[in-house]
């Protein structure tokens, strides 16, 4: 039987760990509340922007912009993917799920260029000896519009330089439950837009465009892609925090279970020690008594 001291040490150890997990839980939930609040402020803008781009996209017969109307039959030569992971582990299956989706995509598309957001993903690829774009260093923590703009500029730079002609984004979506999504970012896909008859907000009037649809769309590409990246970052960050909260909650519950069991064992061991001592003392006393007689 283990000694009571050993058990007590384990109990102390587990209690310490539990303190850490419950602190991490609280931190995650506070951060999440703040980032949710920020998302609320930006949602109306990006929703409206998406609706307008969609409407113009439909209205335009064709444009020369290379972000739109790609030749669907053309085989893309350079495909890239933005993979959004967390900076840290300890978030349940969050990171593993994203990386699994990324592996699946790179199996399908050989020579996939990886743009990894978050330290965890970068370490993973370093370990696997898979080459990633190594000057693409962005943190997944606290996504801001500014960071999204920089990411967007970087991607568009490679796009303009013909180093990329198709970009996917792999992120974790929070809207209908937590799920990892692989979506094409640019060029925009015709099928990605709902057809007019399925669309409730049909254009109520015809519009005059100034200066022209293509120019307006080109003016908007940066904002639109930035918006998409930003909401993907925020959704992923929220999912990360939720996963971490769940993991920490489970860890706390496990710690409670362990503690209950260990406490019982500790009491047993303590009681056994006391009983042993009493037996020894009474046995000794009896011996003395018989000796005295």
């Amino acid at each position, binding site marked *: 039987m283990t000694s009571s001291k050993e058990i007590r040490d384990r109990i102390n150890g587990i209690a310490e760990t539990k303190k850490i997990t419950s602190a991490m839980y609280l931190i995650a939930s506070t951060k999440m509340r703040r980032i949710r609040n920020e998302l609320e*402020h*930006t949602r*109306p*803008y*990006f929703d*409206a*922007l998406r609706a*307008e781009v969609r409407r*113009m996209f439909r209205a335009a017969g064709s444009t020369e912009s290379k972000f739109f109307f790609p030749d669907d039959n053309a085989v893309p030569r350079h495909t890239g993917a933005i993979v959004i992971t967390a900076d840290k582990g300890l978030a349940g299956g969050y990171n593993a799920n994203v990386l699994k989706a990324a592996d699946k995509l790179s199996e399908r598309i050989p020579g996939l260029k990886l743009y990894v957001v978050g330290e965890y993903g970068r370490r993973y690829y370093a370990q696997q000896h898979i080459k990633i774009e190594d000057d693409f260093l962005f943190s997944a923590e606290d996504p801001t*519009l500014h960071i999204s703009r920089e990411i967007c*500029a970087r991607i*568009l*730079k490679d796009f*303009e*330089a013909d180093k990329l002609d198709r970009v996917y984004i792999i992120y974790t979506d929070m809207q209908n439950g937590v799920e990892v999504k692989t979506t094409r970012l640019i060029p925009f896909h015709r099928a990605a837009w709902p057809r007019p008859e399925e669309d409730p907000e049909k254009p*109520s*009037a*015809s*519009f*005059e*465009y*100034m*200066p022209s649809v293509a*120019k*307006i769309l080109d*003016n*908007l590409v*940066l*904002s639109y892609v*930035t*918006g998409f990246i930003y909401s993907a970052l925020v959704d992923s960050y929220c999912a990360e925090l939720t996963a971490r909260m769940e993991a920490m909650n489970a860890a706390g519950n496990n710690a409670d279970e362990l503690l209950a069991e260990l406490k019982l064992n500790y009491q047993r061991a303590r009681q056994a020690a006391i009983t042993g001592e009493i037996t020894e003392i009474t046995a000794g006393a009896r011996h003395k008594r018989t000796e005295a007689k």
Partner: protein
Amino acid sequence: MEKPFSLSILAADKPFYEGECLSLVIPTTEGQYGIMANHLNMIAAVSPGTLKARLWENGRERVAVAAVTEGIAKIENNNVLILVDSIEKPEEIDSRRAERELEAAKKALNKKAGHIEHSLAEAKLLRAINRLKVKKDFSDNM
């Protein structure tokens, strides 16, 4: 009496204004463009510049000026929707910060860089100049 129309301005980081307006001047890629009630349905590309609006609030007129960046304006049946990357009131503009950005953008422009970096720097320069201009006009009128 002029007829008011409804105006909503949304920026990337916050909804900016929602209410009625008498007349509006927006900076477009083709120059300053004025809008009044019963305007033709139209979508225009907004470029960095000064937005001027005569807002109609609780039966009183209020003139508002703000610095805007790239975006679009949509006019549909007397509803005007303006979507811009950022919008700032003159009193929110920090002129020292804007000057610093102006310098940074100038430096970036002087460096030999790729096409997209160049256009990013150019856009930054325009934004900084515009901020300073709006700020200056505002302080002069005080």
